[in-house]
């Protein structure tokens, strides 16, 4: 029989006992709905967790540090080249790291404590450089109020919320749930200017020295040969945005409350606390670089490559691995519980079709008498099972989606009462929709095999005698 005829006859037969077949199909729908509901909850929770973690930038970043920094060796106790002959983490090496497969960018960490004046009042804070790529590649700056830096070297700043509150003289009361609205904070600040005072490290003798130090090579390590001066400078910066980013969450800019474009921060040659050579005349060397990779899976390979180059590297990829493992197990359990209802539904299919054989015994006999082969009869019953699976699966996915929305709605009411921000703990990706329908059809097909084989084996003489 042709595909059209099988489908046509199957649909006709299903319509003949519409009530019973509808009940069976509803059973499948409920089964699929519970499966979809369970899995979307698992997926939603996983997405929620990984979104938070990805925002932190912790899991797609490898930190490369020079082994010359003795503190690193003491802390991590790694083997490798001795500090004296290990390579310097300079601009050339940075470029090399950037060329590694899977690496998006490698940028230095610039962070320093300095004084910022606003409205003629001094404020002491940590300032950090932010790579321009954070605009598009990092969710961390998604929720800013205002706009991101206009260019890589624009004299602009983004303020962390608590610093904005400090500038405006608002004290957030600890323990109170009434949080200041970031929009309200941004309004009076955006467009205003603040002055950052900082110390520039320079080798230029012409600059008026604020303090002058003469260092011998033995004191500062192999790369720092020259004497340098520290010059007091100030830079006017325009406030472009306020972010409610948690200051602890961004690794590269940890605990900073004022953010500058990274390139600008580099160009300013600010003297950082560890007396690294950042002066304009020599090629810069870095104590550490943040290496961002295209996706967390590539972290181990990049880490390995950086170690081979003679640097220390570390990442928090192990933490994501166990998180993934946890969600894989959770999804597995949810899928098993969700599938239980579908298993019950599949027994319903077997039952319905076995009943249909009894009911349509004579009809099967007639079809065989006029020339239907075993395969024709088998195909017809399998098609009926698949049709119920398809319809049941489709309605089931829709039903699962509705259940999910309701749970999400309920959860958010609860979260709101507990003074938490609303969260999307529910996610039904397209693959789950298609996968659930396909699974439903597959389960129905398997359930239909036994009744179909029974119908195909029916003896036509016996069947025709049946009234």
């Amino acid at each position, binding site marked *: *029989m042709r595909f059209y005829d099988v489908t046509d006859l199957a649909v*006709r*037969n299903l319509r003949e006992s519409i009530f019973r077949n509808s009940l069976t199909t509803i059973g499948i729908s409920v089964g699929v709905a519970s499966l979809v509901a369970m899995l979307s909850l698992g997926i939603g929770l996983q997405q929620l967790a990984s979104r938070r973690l990805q925002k932190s930038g912790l899991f797609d970043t490898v930190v490369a540090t020079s082994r010359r920094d003795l503190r690193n060796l003491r802390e991590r106790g790694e083997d490798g080249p001795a500090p004296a002959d290990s390579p310097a983490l300079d601009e050339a090496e940075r470029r090399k790291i950037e060329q590694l497969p899977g690496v998006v960018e490698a940028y230095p960490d610039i962070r320093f404590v300095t004084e910022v004046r606003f409205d003629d009042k001094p404020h002491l804070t940590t300032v950090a450089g932010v790579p321009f790529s954070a605009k598009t590649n990092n969710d961390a700056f998604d929720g800013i109020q205002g706009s991101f830096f206009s260019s890589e070297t624009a004299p602009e700043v983004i303020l962390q919320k608590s610093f904005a509150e400090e500038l405006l003289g608002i004290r957030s009361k600890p323990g109170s749930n009434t949080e200041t609205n970031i929009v309200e904070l941004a309004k009076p600040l955006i467009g205003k200017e603040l002055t950052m005072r900082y110390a520039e490290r320079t080798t230029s003798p012409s600059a008026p020295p604020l303090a002058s130090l003469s260092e011998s090579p033995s004191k500062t390590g192999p790369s720092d040969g020259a004497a340098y001066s520290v010059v007091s400078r100030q830079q006017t910066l325009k406030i472009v945005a306020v972010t409610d980013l948690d200051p602890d969450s961004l690794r590269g800019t940890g605990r900073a409350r004022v953010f500058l474009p990274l390139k600008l921060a580099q160009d300013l040659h600010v003297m950082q606390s560890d007396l690294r050579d950042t002066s304009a005349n020599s090629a810069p060397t870095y104590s550490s670089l943040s290496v961002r990779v295209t996706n967390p899976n590539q972290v181990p390979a990049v880490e390995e490559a950086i170690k081979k180059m003679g640097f220390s590297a570390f990442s928090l990829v192990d933490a994501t691995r166990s998180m993934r493992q946890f969600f894989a197990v959770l999804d597995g359990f949810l899928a098993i519980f969700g599938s239980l209802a579908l298993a019950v539904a599949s027994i319903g299919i077997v039952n319905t079709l076995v009943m249909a054989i009894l009911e349509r015994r004579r009809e099967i006999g*007639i079809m*065989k008498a*006029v*020339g239907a*082969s075993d395969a024709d009869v088998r195909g017809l019953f399998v098609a009926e099972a698949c049709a119920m699976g398809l319809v049941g699966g489709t309605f089931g996915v829709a039903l699962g989606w509705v259940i999910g929305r309701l749970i999400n709605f309920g959860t958010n009411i609860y979260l709101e009462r507990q003074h938490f921000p609303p969260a999307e703990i529910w996610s039904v990706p397209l693959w789950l929709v298609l996968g659930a329908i396909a699974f439903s059809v597959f389960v129905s097909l398997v359930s239909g095999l036994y009744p179909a084989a029974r119908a195909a084996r029916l003896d036509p003489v016996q069947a025709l005698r049946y009234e």
Partner: protein
Amino acid sequence: MNTSLAVSTENVCRHYPMGEALVRAVDGISIDIGAGEFVALLGASGSGKSSLLNLVAGLDRPTSGAVIVHGDNLAALSREQLAKYRLHTVGMVFQSFNLIPSMTLLENVELPMRFAEVDRRERSALARRALERVGLGGRLAHRPTELSGGEQQRASLARALINHPKLLLADEPTGNLDSRTGTEIMDLIRSFNQSLGMTVLMVTHEQALAEKYAGRMLHLADGRLIQDIHPGDRPNDNAPDISSVKAPAPRGEKR
């Protein structure tokens, strides 16, 4: 009589167990039916005429012996081949019509063409023509239950002939009809036998009907052939001549 053989059975048996007993429904029948013949199978209830018809129809398989239809031994065919044989070589008409009640007449007649994978567009036109030929052109969209017995049997005839079979098998085709309607159906069957040259094997228990339409009558009793009457050598008395046939074995004999 046509010289080529349409159906030939060689000592064919169909035995089946029923509880402790062995039922010999067909018990060693050998017959030859030429192409184009109109043969009536006569006998009392339980004489084995329907069982023999089922063997020739390929709905059942013999316990022993052979059923050869147009050169093919049905006993040697696979289930798949047997289905093909039923589809293309034989057409069947039953006492209870056996139309599918959920389908219209047109759909019922189209059904064998679905299994034969006839093109959808062609199918409808062919079924329509077949129903018009049996006088049901105005009843295409009716369901079987909306029709009289005679109309249902005509539709069933249209369905039996739709794939152009060589052999028409009829199991008590007039059994559920009044005599006038029965005659109409028999006239139709005869017209197909004569105009299309189709071999007809008809089971009936009505001697008169067989005499009027059939060219040959085979009398069965207890699964055996007791008399084979050809048109020329019909005896003058009405009673069947059983003197030459040995007494049949008792039925329900212990195994």
